């Protein structure tokens, strides 16, 4: 299956599934990240609130009646530990700065407008030493304290929530990296799952590929198919039933027609034989002989079409010598000779002896008719499973070699002695034997037809 073939149902389904899956996953991750950032932000705000409250609690009134910040030692130590990171400033209701850390922050906050009881958040930069120059995020709020209402400002460097953010960032980057992998994985899983699901479909398509004119009885398996496909397969099988029936009728017709023609032909043949005379009568006899031959060949073709040949172990030596012996008198009557060159050992192949004799007879007949008077046709059996029939005719032109085995084909200018079925029978017989027939030029002129058989498993 090529990836470029986008008409593949498997691939299309897999890709669509994968895209959908990844899109859903990306949306889910996005929402998660967004929520996490939100939570991180509100956590920050909440902490600033708490600090402001802590500072408010720490406000006391001293003996002079003045408000004063009395930080618990722990908090004081914490603020002293990072004066640049954590800022605060406390103003009274008149805007006077009561306490601040560091002092610069106090100076700055002193110029700010009054705080409100609703907390307001701010961003700030450039407080503290130049080299620090950090950005701050802070809160202004007006709170009641034991020393009266106070305006409290707290701020912390923006980077101080960096742990949360970096965790988030890392999570996002991790997710990003996983997405293509996820895509591939889903694609892979999709392909495997769909392939498995479509396996019966592949199996029936393989089965369907074996259907042909010589294998019309094949039917596609209907069980264990997806219900979506089953009706299609059932219809195809029904169509095949009808085709097979049609084929059978056709074959039967050919066979019956040929068979029925035989008796009247035999009568005409015999009647012509009993008549005395020359000229027209002689021609008529030739014509009838040709018709006899045609009917025989039609029957041969019908036989090949109609039934599965029964195979047995066959010795090519015996087949060839028997055909040569049977045909020799006819060849001699045609003023040609015929010779058999056997192999020393039996050459066994798996085959049907009658079909093979028929095929070889056709080949020999063809060779004899194409060889000049007085010349010899040689039938050679080769020990590696071949029969060669060589003649001394004019050979077979290269361009005709494809067509010569087709039914009813005749070469241009061919004399009218055959119907063009003989070589078709040869080729179809060889196909039924999983062998082949080939044509080559003879060194001394003429053609050599070779029947080759697959070697018999020992």
């Amino acid at each position: 299956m090529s990836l470029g073939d986008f008409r593949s149902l498997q691939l299309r389904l897999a890709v669509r599934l994968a895209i959908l899956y990844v899109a859903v996953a990306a949306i889910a991750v996005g929402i998660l990240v967004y929520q996490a950032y939100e939570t991180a932000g509100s956590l920050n705000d909440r902490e600033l609130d708490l600090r402001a409250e802590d500072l408010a609690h720490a406000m006391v009134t001293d003996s002079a009646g003045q408000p004063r910040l009395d930080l618990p030692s722990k908090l004081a130590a914490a603020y002293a530990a990072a004066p640049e990171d954590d800022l605060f400033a406390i103003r009274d209701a008149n805007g006077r700065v009561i306490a601040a850390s560091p002092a610069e922050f106090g100076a700055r906050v002193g110029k700010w407008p009054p705080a409100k009881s609703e907390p307001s958040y701010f961003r700030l930069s450039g407080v503290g030493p130049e080299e620090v120059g950090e950005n701050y995020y802070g809160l202004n709020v007006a709170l009641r304290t034991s020393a009266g209402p106070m305006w409290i400002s707290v701020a912390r460097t923006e980077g101080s929530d960096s742990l949360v953010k970096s965790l988030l960032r890392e999570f996002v980057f991790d997710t990003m990296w996983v997405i293509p992998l996820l895509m591939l994985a889903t694609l892979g899983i999709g392909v495997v799952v769909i392939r498995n699901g479509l396996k019966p479909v592949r199996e029936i398509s393989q089965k369907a590929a074996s259907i042909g004119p010589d294998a019309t009885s094949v039917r596609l398996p209907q069980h264990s198919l997806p219900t979506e496909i089953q009706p299609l397969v059932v219809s195809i099988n029904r169509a095949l039933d009808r085709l097979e029936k049609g084929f059978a009728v056709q074959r039967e017709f050919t066979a019956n027609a040929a068979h029925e023609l035989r008796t009247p032909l035999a009568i005409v043949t015999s009647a012509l034989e009993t008549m005395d005379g020359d000229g027209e009568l002689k021609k008529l006899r030739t014509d009838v002989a040709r018709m006899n031959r045609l009917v025989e060949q039609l029957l041969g073709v019908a036989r090949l079409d109609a039934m599965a040949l029964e195979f047995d172990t066959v010795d090519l030596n015996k087949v060839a010598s028997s055909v040569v012996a049977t045909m020799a008198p006819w060849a001699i009557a045609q003023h040609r000779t015929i010779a058999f060159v056997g192999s020393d050992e039996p050459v066994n192949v798996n085959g049907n002896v009658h079909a093979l004799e028929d095929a070889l007879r056709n080949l020999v007949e063809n060779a004899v008719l194409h060889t000049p008077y007085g010349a010899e046709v040689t039938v050679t059996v080769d020990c590696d499973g071949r029969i060669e029939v060589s003649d001394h005719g004019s050979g077979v032109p290269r361009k005709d070699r494809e067509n010569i085995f087709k039914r009813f084909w005749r070469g241009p200018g061919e004399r009218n002695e055959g119907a063009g079925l003989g070589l078709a029978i040869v080729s179809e017989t060889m196909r039924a034997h999983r062998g082949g027939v080939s044509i080559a030029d003879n060194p001394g002129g003429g053609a050599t037809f070779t029947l080759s058989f697959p070697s018999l498993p020992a």
Partner: protein
Amino acid sequence: MRLLVVEDEPRISELIKAALERAEFVVDTVRVRADAREALANTPYDAAILDLGLPDGDGLDLLAELRPAGNHIPVLILTARDAVEQRVLGLDAGADDYLVKPFAMSELIARTKALLRRPGAALGTTLKAGNIVFDTIGRDASIAGMPLQLPRREAAILEHLLRRQGRVVPKSVLEEKLYGIDTELESNAVPVHVHHLRRKLQEARASAEIHTVRGIGYLLVETKT
């Protein structure tokens, strides 16, 4: 010589009868198996020509009845080409020869004569091909009435070729025939004898000649005039 033809197709039967009668046989024809059975029981035929597909049953069954009953009449079976297995069955059932339809009448006559020439059969004594005549009892040959002197081995070969004229006789079969005469046989004995025999036939202007089918054997064919 009297023959029985068992054939249900009237035109074919008629033509076979006519052809055999021209070859100077006396011919009776029947169309069904039952009639054939009766004819064979009542008349001493010299040979029978039996078509396998009969209206009231298979000709093979008739044959299967004859042989166990001790009737050894030579039988020539007529069979269709696509019933190839039947040929084998026919020979198993005791047929002496078969002929595949459609056949030439001349072939039918030749085969019938060959059947009658078999040892013990009606045409036991004289074999003919063209102007060659061979007496199987006296074992002497003549061409156009002129006696032809042949050594025993050449005569044996000629006899065998005549018995199966028009058909190829495998070299191995001729070797076996010679083996009966000579226990020591050289590997090229048959070709040598055939060569001599052929030359003698030519010199005597015989109207039949011996053809070699290289790799298989020899056959004797009447020369066409």
